């Protein structure tokens, strides 16, 4: 006899309540990161040796700014998921683990926000 409620079975999210959410987000951002990483590397190579004014002019292109923001957002979400797994694998003490999981989210959120703000500032005429 199953002790699961019919609602729980229909939702199919398992005991952690997340289903395949983590796996799916990791793959989704991973797929997005392939072209975004290549685009970012290309962006860096094309701008080697440029002055700040030239750099700002390039980021003022909506296409470049959009690519950079997508790269940053997809990147930090992917980072958050990956580091979460590393922490869950290697930090057995519950208190330390929870602190590390919180620090991970704070770090990724801060890094992502600073990056997006920097791009927006340059995109809107720095």
């Amino acid at each position: 006899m199953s002790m699961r409620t019919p609602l729980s079975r229909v939702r199919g999210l398992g005991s952690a309540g997340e289903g395949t959410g983590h796996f799916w987000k990791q793959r989704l951002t991973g797929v997005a990161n392939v072209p975004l990483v290549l685009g970012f590397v290309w962006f860096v190579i094309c701008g080697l040796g440029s002055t700040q004014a030239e750099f700002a002019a390039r980021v003022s292109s909506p296409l470049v700014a959009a690519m950079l923001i997508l790269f940053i957002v997809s990147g930090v979400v992917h980072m958050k998921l990956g580091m979460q797994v590393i922490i869950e694998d290697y930090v057995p003490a519950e208190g330390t683990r929870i602190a590390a999981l919180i620090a991970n989210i704070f770090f990724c959120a801060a890094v992502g926000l600073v990056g997006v703000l920097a791009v927006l500032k340059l995109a809107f005429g720095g």
Partner: protein
Amino acid sequence: MSGNSRTGGGADARPLSPHLQIYRPAITMTMSIVHRITGAALYFGTLIVIGWLASAASGPAAFDTAQNLLGSFLGRLVLFGYTWALFHHMLGGIRHFIWDTGAMLDKHTASKVAWASLGGSVALTLLAWVIGYAVMG
């Protein structure tokens, strides 16, 4: 009840599942470990990327400082390592996408793909840097 039965060799010692030090290293295992290490390295390497973008947004003086720092020998060394970690993690990820479909999972194919991703990451890194130095003239 003799305390720690996981590590003790007493009468109640239980079998342990084999771990890293038991297996002969295989390329798939090494690439799996390197995938995680490059992922963690890229996690902190993102600080360089974001710091660089933030310096550009802060103005010419800050940008020049960042460019000089990244352009120094040590800076280039770190960026070279970052480039390799980026490409290695990217190819490792693509390998996982292929495996997600159920393809290339048999032992010999998996080993070949692991070697290919290692070779590919070195090739892409060198290519990016050769193009980079060519662009700079």
